[in-house]
């Protein structure tokens, strides 16, 4: 049976792509953020996951308002990155895992999630840069991938509660996948930031630290936030927190925090990284 070995949540911003391209990882501005991934590198080298399920939000590369899905899941053999208009280098294609994708989609639709099923996805910086942070050095990607997109563009956005339930259902789906593979979860987005309006530049460190604490100890509390509360406290793009909530809910076992970093700012954003290990619950072990 497939096993969720753990998960990583991280902020994503396009300028990470520029920092990598220009080798600024050791600059005073970027070092605290890039250093946050060193524990993840050690963990990944030791645990060697086979597949990364990447829960993120598209920023208008793949999805447009003509057809804006609330939840969309990729089921392709390969995913391409592309020009987003900002001159960030386009990264190498990513291997998909169609069997796991379809298994998750079938399980979710049976569980009454109304998934948009995607046999082509252009993956944007919210997918590619966390992968490049996890696997630095322009190596061949050592994992297959499953992209999961949450709408963060067009209100009404899915509620935190719904994203939490989605994550739980993804966790159940992975746990029931019959192949003997190791899965790492990614949640990429947030934390607090706002790009638009007169409040642009707003960051809320106390709220971000509260969110990180709840990620550790009480993720249900995050599911109780209303979207209005999230926009108010985390800024209009702070709704990307949904990706963290879904990823945390997908860890179905006993969860142990391995690492956490919080550093302000990266670009306009509260830059946060958390790494968790997931140990299957006794009943999950019994079911194997």
């Amino acid at each position, binding site marked *: 049976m497939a096993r969720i070995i753990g998960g990583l949540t991280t902020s994503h911003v396009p300028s990470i792509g520029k920092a990598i391209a220009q080798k600024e990882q050791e600059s005073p501005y970027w070092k605290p953020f890039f250093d946050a991934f060193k524990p993840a590198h050690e963990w990944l080298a030791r645990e060697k996951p086979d597949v990364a399920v990447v829960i993120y939000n598209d920023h208008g590369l793949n999805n447009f308002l003509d057809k804006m899905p609330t939840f969309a899941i990729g089921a392709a053999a390969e995913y391409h990155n592309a020009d987003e208009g900002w*001159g960030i280098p386009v990264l190498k294609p990513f291997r998909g895992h169609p069997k796991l994708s379809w298994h998750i989609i079938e399980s979710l639709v049976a569980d009454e999630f109304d998934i948009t099923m995607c046999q082509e996805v252009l993956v944007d910086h919210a997918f590619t840069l966390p992968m490049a942070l996890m696997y630095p050095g322009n190596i061949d990607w050592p994992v297959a991938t499953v992209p999961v997109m949450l709408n963060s563009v067009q209100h*009404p956005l899915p509620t935190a509660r719904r994203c939490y339930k989605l994550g739980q259902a993804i966790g159940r789906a992975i746990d029931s996948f019959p192949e003997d593979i190791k899965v790492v979860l990614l949640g990429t987005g947030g934390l607090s930031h706002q790009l638009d309006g007169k409040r642009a530049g707003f960051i809320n460190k106390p709220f971000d630290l509260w969110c990180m604490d709840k990620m550790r100890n009480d993720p249900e509390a995050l599911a109780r936030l209303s979207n209005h509360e999230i926009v108010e406290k985390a800024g209009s793009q702070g709704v990307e927190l949904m990706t963290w909530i879904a990823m945390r809910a997908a860890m179905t076992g006993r969860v142990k925090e391995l690492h956490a970093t919080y550093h302000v700012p990266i670009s306009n954003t*509260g830059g946060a990284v958390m790494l968790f290990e997931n140990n299957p619950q006794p009943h999950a072990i019994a079911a194997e």
Partner: protein
Amino acid sequence: MTFGAPIPGTPVFDGDAAVKGYALNKMCFSFNAKENRDAFLQNEEAYCDKYRLSDEQKQAIKSRNVLQLIAAGGNVYYLAKFAGIFGLNVQDIGAQQTGMSIDDFKAYLVSQGK
């Protein structure tokens, strides 16, 4: 059915905004492709006409003013691609919207980490 009480300085891209801004956002979405960015730069008005922008939207595009573009229905995720044409990043548009200098805006970001 509403999002809730307005949050000062914080646009919410809801159905009304989506209806109002559709043409503008569709044009900005096209800026993912270099050939479209080039076509815009070559003949801005013709490009806006091709996407049937309203007069308000054309004016906002001409002004390069992000608050005006948002008022005309623009969504920041797509507008960021318009800003990208001019090499502007999210600090540049943040400074513009808040009326700060870019250095002051960057200092404001840093100050929130204290």
